[in-house]
């Protein structure tokens, strides 16, 4: 998403301009970003159909507000993810959806590597317990970095942080996870 060629960027800018002129012209942008936005939303919840509903809401909001979008260094995709983030968290606040974190076991390996711990079955259990006690602001950073494989630049753009700040905050979140993990390990043993 963040490795556009100049031609693709130019094409996207044209689409944006056309969508600003008429909402009917939003189609190509919808087609391009439907899957990434759905995956972002569904990553954070467990109800597939509701996730699709939220995706529709995201695009409706994007169509409504596209006139506000200005290409000032923030990619259009990041702008869409910001809307998606807002809609997802609103659904949690309204108790319409429950917050889930979806993880593949293989993705935990990298977390273990960062924490310099063995990725055995027992440790996975401790890690999951440790993850569940993290605060939202920390889990979202780890989620984007390790489970969605986003770059710090992209994380920063979505969370409205500088790239460096996103890196520092992710590192701190990892430190908290590690502290929780040690606590969890001790408590269970």
């Amino acid at each position: 998403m963040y490795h556009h060629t100049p031609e693709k960027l130019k094409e996207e800018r044209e689409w944006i301009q056309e969508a600003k002129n008429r909402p009917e012209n939003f189609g190509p942008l919808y087609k391009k970003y439907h899957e990434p936005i759905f995956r972002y939303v569904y990553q954070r919840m467990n109800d597939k159909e509701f996730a699709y509903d939220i995706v529709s809401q995201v695009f409706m909001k994007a169509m409504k507000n596209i006139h506000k979008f200005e290409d000032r260094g923030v990619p259009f995709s990041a702008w869409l993810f910001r809307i998606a983030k807002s809609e997802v968290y609103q659904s949690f606040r309204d108790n319409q959806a429950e917050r889930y974190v979806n993880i593949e076991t293989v993705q935990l390996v990298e977390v273990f590597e960062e924490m310099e711990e063995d990725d055995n079955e027992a440790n996975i259990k401790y890690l999951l317990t440790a993850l569940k006690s993290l605060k939202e602001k920390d889990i979202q950073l780890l989620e984007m970095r390790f489970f969605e494989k986003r770059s710090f630049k992209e994380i920063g753009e979505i969370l409205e942080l500088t790239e460096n700040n996103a890196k520092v905050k992710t590192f701190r979140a990892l430190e908290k996870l590690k502290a929780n993990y040690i606590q969890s390990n001790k408590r269970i043993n």
Partner: protein
Amino acid sequence: MENFKVNLDRPKISSEEIAQKQNFENVLNKFNQVKTPVYKNPWFWGSAGLASVGLTTIVSLNAISANVNPKKEIDDKKATLTKSELPKDTECIKAPIEGENIDFKTYHVNALKDEKIVLESGTTIEIPKGSLLAENKTEKVDIKIREFHDKASVFIAGIPMDYENNTAFESAGMIEIRGVQNNKEVKINPKKPLEISLKTDKNPETFDFWYLNEESKSWEIFPTQKQDFTSNFDEKSNQKSVILTKSITNKKSEIKTINDRINLIDNQLSKIEKPKEEEFKIPKKNSQLFDLDFDKNDYPELATFKELVFEIIPSKTQDPNFTKKNWSDIDLSKDGDKYLMKFKNSRESYQTYVRPVLKGSELKIAEKKFDLAIEEFKATKKEFETKKVNLETEKKAHEVVLNKLINEETRKNQIRNNQAVEDTDVKVNKEIQQVAGFSNFITFQAPAFGVFNCDKPIPYPKAFESSLAFLWIGHQIAKFKQIFIFDLEKNTRYTYSAIPNQGYESIDNIGFHKNNDIVVVGIDFDGNVGYAEFKDRKNDKSKENHNIEKIVFTKKDKSASTLDLLKKLLNETGSSV
């Protein structure tokens, strides 16, 4: 404590499955159903939003006439508030100097009538009937307004002037407008927004228009129709004719729709058939009837009728004497849906079509049903005919309006073709502008109360290389919780705040353009206001490349008005609020 649930290795969804769920048409339909009121859509102001242009034109023309003699309306409605009646500061708008604020002016308006408020600046607010959603419709609503045309007043009122990406606004005119009834906030019906024509002191073409979202505490861009009263008359003239053209097109379209509906009714009328007696098995008057025994097993469709006779269906080839002859055999058969009766004797045979009809009590029931069907037929026919008459009346009314519009367009085109007339209009317009003493207006529709601002974001200046020391005169350290840099050249205010719990020393990153005239205002933790000036420095070569290391503040007398002081410092003594 678990803050969320974790799914480990949930089955993946394929891209194909997600793609199948794509439905842009559905999203677009939903968007069209709930889309932002048209006045909030920027494309509304484009070629598609011709109606708004016309409305704006009307508002603008009203503003011209209102401003030529604005005093009368102001006298009728003006009632300045006491400070105790001021709406409370919101979390977003917080007057920084304790005990000082900018007064609102209150106008009492009737929510059940079209109202128009004309401010001293020439700014007009039109409140359409039904716009104010007041609890008590019969009681007047207080419209509280304060209009800002200088930095000092905006500062004293506590209007935030920062925008995203480290920028601050250069204002070209701002208005705050609230609605109150019995100390309760009144809202605006978004379908009937206020029409505001705000005076600006600068060329509005170089500024954007913004609405202060007090929930998110941020400025949001807001669509407007920029109005330059000094612009030539051609534009307005063209706008009006565009409206006429558009109205004519709309009217023609309405008439076409009515014609289509009339055609549809004609079509439906042609399809309504009058009930026929034979459908109810009722014999015709003076017809020839035969009583005939037949095997009901051969004709099961007739088995349900108890009393049945057969009626001769008259035909041109019918032998008028056949009933006078002796027939030895009569046979009933079917020819398709029809019944055929064959008469035979030793010499000849004869056949004729017949139809089964009722007699006795069954006939009476059938006759009643037939009468009801006739009544229903007449009622339905009348209903359609009434609809048609109404539509034709409606069509005639539209045609009258259409003719008027066409005549008006013709008249307008004639005027527009006459350059001499146009030139006169331009001259008159300019003369009005000179007499009224104003230049530019921005016209917009306000679907909610709040703060509206004609602004341009200006980047914060680069911070000085080294931290600044803040001192009172006499070298005592000044401990400010907020510092405001007023750049007189850029017409901007930059705000710097101490980080909570980290004290005055946390105010950092201050900088300003060294060659510009600058006024620095600080508010310390005890509420003292201090100020310092950096003026006439363009020609001061000794300071040009010199980093400023400290700012020495003069403490304002607590009893003195900060507004007056600031106006003097910012050279805004002649400006108005």
